[in-house]
């Protein structure tokens, strides 16, 4: 089942920061990892990922460095900075509050404002 993209819009940054919390990654690796872990719910277009990554880099939340691969390709790795780590914690808290609130509503029942 496909997911409405607007649901994803606000949380893409959190997903990317979370991946980078584990280890440094390059763009293609991020897209593949996100797709695998979400059972292909999050199949990003690469063209969506790079503007986000570059914005995060400009904001200082991630940094990057280049490495030469054994095939003599130059690969750009992204690394989570300290301020990126702090932002991730804030975003995770925000997300937990949001999910809890949505679940409470979806469960139904409970209090009504005008009874």
């Amino acid at each position, binding site marked *: 089942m496909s997911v409405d993209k607007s649901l994803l819009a606000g949380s893409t940054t959190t997903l990317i920061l979370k991946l980078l919390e584990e280890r440094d990654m390059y763009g293609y690796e991020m897209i593949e990892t996100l797709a695998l872990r979400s059972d292909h719910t999050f199949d990003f277009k*690469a*063209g969506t990922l790079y503007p986000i990554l570059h914005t995060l880099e*400009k904001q200082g939340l991630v940094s990057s460095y280049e490495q030469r691969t054994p095939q003599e390709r130059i690969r750009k790795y992204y690394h989570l900075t300290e301020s990126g780590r702090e932002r991730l914690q804030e975003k995770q808290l925000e997300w937990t509050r949001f999910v809890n609130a949505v679940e409470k509503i979806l469960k139904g029942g409970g209090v009504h404002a005008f009874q």
Partner: protein
Amino acid sequence: MPSNEHFTEYCQQVSQQIRWKRVRGVVAQELEQHLCDQQDAYVEQGHDADEAARMAVAQMGDAQMVGQALNQTHRPQTPWLPMFVILVLLAVGLVLQSMLSPDAIWALPYGIAAAAFILGYFMDTSLLGRHAGKVYGLVLALSLLALFRIRVSLHAVMLGHSFAVLSLPPFDIMLGNLTLIFPIAYGLFVYWMRNRGMLGIVYCGLAYLPFAGFLLCIPTIIGFLLYTIASLVLLCTAIWLGWFHVRRVRGLALALIPPLMCCGVFLVTLLSSESLQFRSFRIDLDGHLNNQVRELVTQAAFWGQGGGDLSTIPNLETDYTLLYGIHRFGLGPFLALMLLSVGLCIFCMRRGLRQQSMLGKLLVVAVSTTFVLQVLSYGVTNLGYALFGAISFPFVSYGGTALVLNSLLMGCMLSVFRMGPWVRDAVTAVQKV
């Protein structure tokens, strides 16, 4: 169509949407790499190379949309605050020079300085990183070449100046002022040697020596001290930030050896030599000039015209511009100027250390250190506590070579801020953040 042509065409379409041309290459390289990875994955799934390439391009998304999104991110950042402070310093300098000797203001150095600033500001600083060793070698070679072409100005010797002058008509270049570009050249050498462990630090120690020797040959004692302090700061910063992958204490201890040895040799030479060059250092060892300066400072008002007679102070335009300012406008404006200059350095240093590229960090540290050492030594000299004189007060005191070199250095540093995260380190196989 071969697969890489698909990629090149796609990347070109994306790049064309980005108005800031400097980053187009960086972006295209990253996207092309991604496309190659994606193509490999499709080939592994059983598609032929050409089909895999088409699928990889399709997976990337619409080139126009991607390019426009990237264009929103990639904008050069104009460092307005440092630029404003530099303009203020320049204005203060022009006012003081026009009051001191209105006929001596020569437009040509200011024109060349403006060109040097623009050159530095719009230069791709990543190029310096890619050719770090060559830049160091070039600066060293030109300096040594200049050393054989100098002539000695006896007039300057009598006034206690560093007196080696390189005549390139219509210019007379004070070689002592080349001190200003040595730290950045040395910083580039340190950058070149990063990731090479203790051996890299040893090479950096050796690379410190030729410039130090050059400055002792001229000789310029303040230049030697400025270069020594700046080079130590650069090497220690690199070791402290782990760029040599060695234990900090060991690395720092090793880094201290060549400058300490050089300082020892210098002190012995200074105290024992009777040569013409070294006598110039001792011209004011009785402190006569310093006493005069201190006397004038004590007669200065906090705000407004002070007492005393400046006519006995030599070289007001070049060496004692701030003393004239103190005498004419008071100690308050002097303190404000010093605070503004030191504040500029602290601002730049803090912002520089937040740069993610090692190259950006080193360039900013090199320029900021050179700048602040000039400001402090000049300030101390103008308060009457000089031991070894000063080079210049950037953008304020008179001096063509210093003005041009300071402008070039400032342009380079602001270029790092302008480029932001797009100052790229040269790629190595083992490089890590």
